[in-house]
């Protein structure tokens, strides 16, 4: 105990020391950058000098007055922009790193708060130096910082809960945001009319514009917050879905009021046009996104020969979708979401496993960087921006935001619950209301305003609201969630039984609805699935996978994950998570008395297997011969030979391995060779050949496994299988299992090993 305390104090001491060092270094860097930038402003006057310096040099050739060759020169201007950008990003990431080193801080304060705080600090330092701190430029924000976050969210959007709650989400997004905007705008205007507040100059349209800006729940802030509190799926998707879908409303309201703020009046026709505009913006955005999504899916069908660039297609098509939507002032966020959602099932069926991992990690990386930068810039902009503090306005804004959100959610839920089957409880309503955070989108929209008179006041109020929601609501939501005992996200991973029963339930409920005779939710979903399977998948998915049912692809993914887990945890000696001694034989029905009739493998099949194994062994040896920057390392599992069949074989093998992972490692001395028994055309079993006498004899044949002659070994052992069929199938169980397990390793190794390893390394990993 004392050691723990001692070590933790040492660690915290070390951490605080690290932080101090980091802070000091950063200060130095910033001072250097600031002074360098000051030099640059002088540098423009220096520029003619180099030109003049050359002249003397020329002249010096003639006058023989040579200047020394500059060994070291300073040219910062050349790399200034990328240098500063990289410096900012580096700072942001170092800060992020720092938070997670300090032990208790990240539990109490959410990361977004810390980042804003850092931004404030940095802004303060820059201002103290005397420089002008950079402001979160709206172009930078909307074109570069926001899309990665939204794409990450949209691509990994959990479709099932989203579509199940779509009605609720839409009501919150559209009606809720409209209510917020008009309520806040209206109340602000009413208060502004009161004498004595000094706000008489604010007219109705400006107030409504302000209301429109401040009313939308921000996806960036919500994401940052909810990631840390691990709330249950329903609440998460409700708040998050709302924050994504309210973009259309925000865009329309913003443009509408901004247009009319200049003109000064709004007619009924304008209001009607506004409504039409809303539908155009949202549906148009979704359409643009869907088109790009289908294009992306279609493109991915043909990428089997150029796997390296597969992730780029996903990123570029999505970004184009966003930009195209922005061109027409449609909702870029909805376009991006639609693109990601549309693309994903087909792209994932087409691309390689490595590309999938790349996409996942790049998206997470970019969105993480973006988020960090956004919050830091928010902090810096707070210090930088021109402020006009008006107590009434600001305090009123904060209060009104909170109140209108609460009222809106409660009121809407009352109506929604009449249509929902699973109603929202009061606790859930509270969390939905409390989780409505405002963030950088509101700030950027406010920054885009052109009316200088009100802009400063609006910006100040917006920043205050953002700070309030992020700091106060952000910090208190976690304890509140615990206090109210709201259901948390269930951590367990999906099991095959759950998947089977989810599908079963889908069909069951569709069937019951058909018996009842009404076309409900399940009926239409079923119709959509059948349409998808019959027509769309054929076009967008390459090869045989277009007909693969979902259950099977789920199962394959699961088995692959288990096999990879097995590999990463070392050999089968170490048991990963489940400590279970149950294996296949415990659940197989007792061997039938008719014995094991082993069918003869067809010649064709044998030939195939032989070719497969031989080709693999050769390829893995060739792997190290040629090197090209644009080629991925040739992986025995991703090649042009019949990928599907190979995949099936691999799946079978991995399944076997995952079964044997549950067997206690009861190692015997001499693992005899197992033979391969082919039961059906596509299943490979390893079975006991049941003869202990031949153990020593077979030891001699052991080294053959690592060579191409392994094929002949299999051949002869399968023949031996046919001979030995009458032997008793069951022997000493431990012997059998450990032998099977080790044999499994050997067989698997012979498929991937780069070279013969005569010593038979027991612990070498599966994929070398």
């Amino acid at each position, binding site marked *: 105990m004392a050691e723990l305390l001692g070590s933790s104090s040492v660690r915290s001491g070390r951490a605080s020391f690290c932080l101090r060092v980091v802070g000091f270094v950063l200060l130095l860097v910033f001072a250097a950058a600031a002074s360098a930038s000051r030099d640059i402003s002088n540098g423009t006057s220096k520029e003619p000098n180099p030109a003049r310096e050359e002249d003397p040099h020329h002249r010096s050739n003639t006058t023989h007055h040579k200047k020394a060759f500059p060994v070291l020169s300073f040219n910062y201007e050349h790399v200034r922009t990328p240098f500063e950008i990289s410096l900012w990003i580096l700072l942001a990431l170092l800060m992020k790193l720092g938070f997670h080193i300090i032990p208790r801080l990240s539990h109490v304060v959410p990361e977004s708060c810390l980042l804003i705080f850092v931004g404030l600090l940095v802004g303060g330092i820059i201002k103290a130096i005397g420089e002008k701190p950079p402001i979160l430029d709206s172009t930078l924000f909307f074109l570069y910082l926001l899309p990665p976050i939204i794409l990450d969210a949209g691509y990994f959007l959990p479709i099932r809960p989203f579509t199940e709650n779509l009605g609720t989400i839409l009501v919150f997004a559209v009606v809720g945001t409209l209510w917020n905007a008009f309520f806040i705008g209206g109340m602000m205007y009413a208060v502004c009319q009161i004498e004595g507040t000094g706000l008489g100059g604010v007219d109705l349209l400006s107030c409504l514009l302000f209301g429109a800006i401040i009313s939308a729940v921000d996806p960036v802030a919500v994401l940052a917050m909810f990631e840390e509190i691990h709330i249950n799926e329903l609440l998460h998707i409700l708040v998050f879905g709302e924050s994504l879908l309210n973009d259309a409303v925000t865009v329309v309201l913003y443009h509408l009021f901004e247009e009319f703020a200049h003109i000064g009046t709004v007619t009924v026709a304008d209001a009607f046009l506004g409504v039409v505009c809303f539908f155009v913006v949202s549906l148009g955005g979704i359409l643009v996104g869907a088109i790009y999504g289908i294009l992306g899916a279609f493109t991915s069908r043909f990428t089997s020969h150029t796997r390296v660039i597969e992730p780029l297609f996903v990123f570029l098509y999505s970004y184009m979708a966003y930009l195209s939507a922005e061109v027409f002032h449609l909702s870029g966020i909805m376009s991006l979401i639609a693109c990601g959602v549309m693309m994903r099932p087909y792209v994932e069926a087409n691309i390689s496993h490595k590309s999938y991992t790349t996409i996942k990690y790049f998206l997470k990386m970019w969105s993480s960087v973006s988020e960090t930068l956004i919050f830091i810039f928010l902090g810096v902009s707070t210090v930088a921006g021109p402020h006009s503090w008006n107590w009434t306005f600001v305090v009123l804004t904060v209060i009104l935001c909170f109140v209108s959100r609460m009222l809106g959610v409660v009121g809407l839920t009352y109506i929604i*619950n009449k249509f929902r*089957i*699973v*109603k929202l*409880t009061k606790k859930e309503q509270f969390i939905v209301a409390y989780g409505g955070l405002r963030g950088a989108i509101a700030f950027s929209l406010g920054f885009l305003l052109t009316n200088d008179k009100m802009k400063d006041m609006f910006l100040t109020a917006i920043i205050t609201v953002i700070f309030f929601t992020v700091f106060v609501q952000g910090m208190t939501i976690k304890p509140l969630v615990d206090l109210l005992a709201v259901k948390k996200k*269930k951590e*367990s991973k999906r*099991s*095959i*039984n*759950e998947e*089977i*029963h*989810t*599908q*079963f*339930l889908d*069909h*069951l*409920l*569709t*069937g*019951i609805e*058909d*018996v*009842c*005779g*009404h076309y*409900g*939710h*399940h*009926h239409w979903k*079923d119709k959509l699935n*059948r349409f998808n399977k019959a027509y769309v998948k054929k076009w967008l998915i390459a090869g045989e996978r277009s*007909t*693969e*049912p979902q*259950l*099977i692809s789920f*199962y394959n993914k699961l088995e692959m994950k288990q096999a990879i887990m097995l590999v990463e945890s070392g050999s089968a000696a170490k048991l990963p998570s*489940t*400590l*279970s*001694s*149950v*294996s*296949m034989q*415990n*659940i*197989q*029905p*007792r061997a039938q008395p008719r014995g094991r009739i082993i069918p003869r493998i067809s010649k064709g099949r044998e030939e195939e297997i032989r070719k497969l194994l031989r080709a693999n062994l050769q390829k893995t040896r060739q792997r190290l011969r040629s090197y090209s920057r644009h080629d991925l390392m040739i992986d025995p599992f991703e090649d042009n030979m019949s990928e599907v069949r190979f995949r099936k074989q691999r*799946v*079978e093998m991995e399944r076997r391995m995952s079964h044997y992972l549950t067997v206690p490692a009861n190692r015997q001395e001499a693992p005899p060779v197992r033979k391969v028994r082919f039961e*059906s055309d*596509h*299943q490979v079993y390893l079975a006991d050949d049941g003869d202990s006498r031949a153990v020593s004899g077979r030891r001699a044949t052991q080294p053959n496994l690592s060579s191409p002659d392994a094929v002949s070994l299999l051949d002869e052992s399968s023949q031996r299988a046919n001979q030995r069929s009458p032997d008793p199938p069951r022997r000493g*169980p*431990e012997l059998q*299992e450990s032998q099977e397990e080790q044999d499994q390793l050997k067989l698997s190794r012979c498929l991937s090993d780069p070279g013969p390893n005569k010593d038979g390394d027991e612990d070498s990993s599966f994929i070398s």
Partner: protein
Amino acid sequence: MGVSVAYSHVVGVWRSFFPTVSLEQIINLHKRFKQLSGNEDTISRENLDSIPALATNPIRKQIIEAFFDKRNQRQDEVGSFHEIGFEQFLMVMSHFRPPTLKTTEEEREVMRREKLRFLFNMHDTDSDGTITLDEYRKVVEELLSKSGAIGLEAAKAIADAAMLEVASTNVPHMEPDEFYEGITFEHFEQILKGLEMESRMHIRFLDVNTTTMHCGK
């Protein structure tokens, strides 16, 4: 209203399970029942077979069988009916009611168990109280039956893996020569705990009369 008198005993029985059911919903179901049975008093398997929308459902045999299963009538009988009346029809339908805001935690537990029991009965075709490997294989096969040859091969592997999972979750340590007989109801409950059946296994019972909106069945 004469109709409500005719239904009163049915409503009474059902209201004990489904407090929020309305008379309109029961009347609609009765209309549907009459339509399916061809204005008779009982429905047979052929009546349900002839619903066209069910033709594309991979598990339609099990669904139809569930209506005639005596175990779903909450009366602790086993076996199956040849024909069912409206009361039995309603009793099966009552398994699909949703929880309400007023449902307490214990009631949710009971509801969940009941729905899981319904599913269990659908899998356990020989009524012996356990789902054997063969029965489970059949379940997965039926699920994948519309997917052609790929489905049938993989069904076996999937069912085996699923069974293994149930066994290893519920009985972690088995001797190598022990045999896991089959999934009992407790194990079934355990393995599907995460799905929260009471919130997922329900359909919407309509107040509006839609049977006249569809021509024929």
